[in-house]
């Protein structure tokens, strides 16, 4: 057997790579030339059944399951064949892989809640080039990667509402605040935290964010992180958790430490998860929006985009749901709602 040394192997590797790179440069194109497989969805789909893929950030989260319920409830009436599927973890790359499959399979509309604003952009742009309509919902991408964004509430709206709930409770008193987020790299959470910081700097100089901890999406980590906050930052009097695992976990920990009423807990979470803590008074108010309506509105926008009747600005009327402002491709569901005990009992998502 003829053999050569590993040193020469390494140089050969580098040289070969360079050759490939140079040879390829001239001939590389941004998309495959033979893409005649698409069903040329440029034309209006009016009156026809359309296939819509509703992709959440991850499956197994009540918030997204609620949106799916809303979407399912109107899909048949809108003549939509709906597929709801997402990754099992908050992964942008898994979403890209799914989007590519759905586009290739000939879906008419992709509606995605993006795990990252930029990572999904190339896949979504390629989809639009093939005539697939792309809308985002819940969590947006960069604007040129989609046609419409169904916005449940603006980032600033969510951030300022969360801060306002705390500020209203403490009425100008000097208060130390801790934040319990999901993971350090979660895009939405980080945006909301930035918006909270901005609101505090602009309007509420009496609030001070002392620490940001993470629950890593695990209830027990959320509980122990909250206990660590209480121990490590004894002056903290309020905990804001813009995460649907973190908020119930923080409430659970405060309850265990017997600090109900002494530490104010609020954040973003689903009524069905918060019921226990609202009922026993650990949490008085928290923030969310009508998730069922978000799902319904997304389906209506999907239908209108496929029909070619969706206005890029102005008013979008939906029978049985109301009128919605459309601004430069953003369809606004409304303002975030502050949930109290009555609202918690009313909703089931």
């Amino acid at each position, binding site marked *: *057997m*003829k*053999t*050569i*040394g*590993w040193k020469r*192997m390494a140089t*050969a*590797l580098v040289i*070969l*790579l360079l050759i*490939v790179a140079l040879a*390829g440069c001239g*001939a*590389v*194109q*941004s*998309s*495959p*030339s*033979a893409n005649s*497989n698409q069903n040329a969805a440029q034309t209006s789909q009016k009156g026809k059944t359309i296939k819509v893929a509703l992709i959440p950030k991850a*499956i*197994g989260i009540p918030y997204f399951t609620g949106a799916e319920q809303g979407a399912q409830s109107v899909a048949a009436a809108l003549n939509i064949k709906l*597929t709801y*599927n*997402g*990754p*099992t*973890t908050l*992964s*942008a*790359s*898994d979403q*890209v*892989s*799914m989007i*590519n*499959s*759905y586009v*290739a*399979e*000939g879906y008419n509309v992709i509606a995605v809640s993006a795990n*990252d*604003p*930029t*990572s*999904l*952009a*190339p896949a979504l742009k*390629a989809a639009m080039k093939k005539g697939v309509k792309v809308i985002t919902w819940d969590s947006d991408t*960069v604007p040129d990667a989609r046609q419409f964004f169904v916005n449940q509430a603006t980032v600033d709206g969510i951030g300022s509402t969360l801060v306002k709930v705390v500020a209203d409770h403490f009425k100008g008193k000097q208060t130390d605040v801790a934040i319990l987020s999901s*993971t*350090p*790299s979660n*895009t939405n959470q*980080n945006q909301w935290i930035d918006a909270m910081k901005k609101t505090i700097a602009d309007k509420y100089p009496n609030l001070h964010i002392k620490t940001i901890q993470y629950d890593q999406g695990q209830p027990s980590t959320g509980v122990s992180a909250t206990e660590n906050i209480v121990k490590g930052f004894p002056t903290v009097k309020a905990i804001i958790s813009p995460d649907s695992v973190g908020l119930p976990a923080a409430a659970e920990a405060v309850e265990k430490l017997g600090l109900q009423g002494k530490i104010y807990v609020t954040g973003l979470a689903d009524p069905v998860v918060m019921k226990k803590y609202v009922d026993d008074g650990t949490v008085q108010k928290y923030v969310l929006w009508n998730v069922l309506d978000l799902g319904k509105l997304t389906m209506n926008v999907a239908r209108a985009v496929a029909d070619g009747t969706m206005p890029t600005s102005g008013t979008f009327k939906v029978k049985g749901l109301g009128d919605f402002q459309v601004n430069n491709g953003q369809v606004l569901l409304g303002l975030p709602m502050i949930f109290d005990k009555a609202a918690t009992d009313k909703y089931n998502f």
Partner: protein
Amino acid sequence: MKRSKFFANWSYGIIAVFLLEMVILSSVTPKFLSNLLPMTENFMPIGIMALSMTLVIIAGGIDLSIGSVVSFSGVIMGLLWQHGMNIWVAGLLAVLIGGLAGFINGQIIVRTGIQPLIATLATQFIWGSLAVVLSNQGSIYGFPGSFLLLGTGFLYGYLPVQLVIFVVLALLFAYLLNKTVFGRQVLFIGNSESVSAYSGVNVNRVKTWTYVLSGLTAGLSGVIMGSFFASVRGDMGQGLELTVITGCLVGGVNVFGGAGTIVGAAFGVLLLGMLSQGLNFMNVSSQVQAIITGVILILAVAIQQLGTIFARRRKMTGGEGAGKLRGERRARVE
């Protein structure tokens, strides 16, 4: 020799199963075949990392840190580019940083003698954490258009650039493993570390090099993924290591070391990647896909195990070589 022959047969088996899968998927979903080549873009980095992971596993190691190295080197590339460096130079440096991370893994393992599983688990935590910190918990984006062609471009209009890189690297790694001194040493060490050490192989150096290669391909994958997603994130590589290892093992690489082929690993990754794409086509939800992947992994090793037992039994009844086999078994216990 019988064992390695069986694993060589396994790689033919994998190719056959892969072709069968293609036939089934394209008959179930008509649009599958026409999108075959573009779809590979979704999992080529996994394939690229599986090539070097094959060497690591054959030499008796494992590398759990590659997912974090992908994130880390991707973020480094983004940061260097943000500070004004040419993106291609930044990419090259990122690949080298990946190699350095691999070198550190290798040195920790050969110098302290701690288990590769534990050492790379620890460095996985460290690189992953650093990547998130360095990326300032967000994404870096806006790379020039020419760079994006690396991950999304098509050669002559139909060959994905990623696939071309993968095939070239696969050929290189196959040559490296089968035709070079280094490759034979990797196999030698995997079969018996002490014997190879006594026969003059510099075990520590060869092992370190397998981890360096692993780091280099992880760095390259970070760059390619940065191009494919047009952005880099501190968690972009999270969890990839398990997919890579699964691909290798389905491809017949022996988890105890000493046996495995590049062809097998490459088709192992293609098999799983195409399956996942096909299941997406058929609207199978992610949770069911997870179950299917797990079952396939166990079935793959179970069939390999049965195959080895049969091969052994045939040998035993044949009488010839039975003593040799017992010796081989003793070496495995060692």
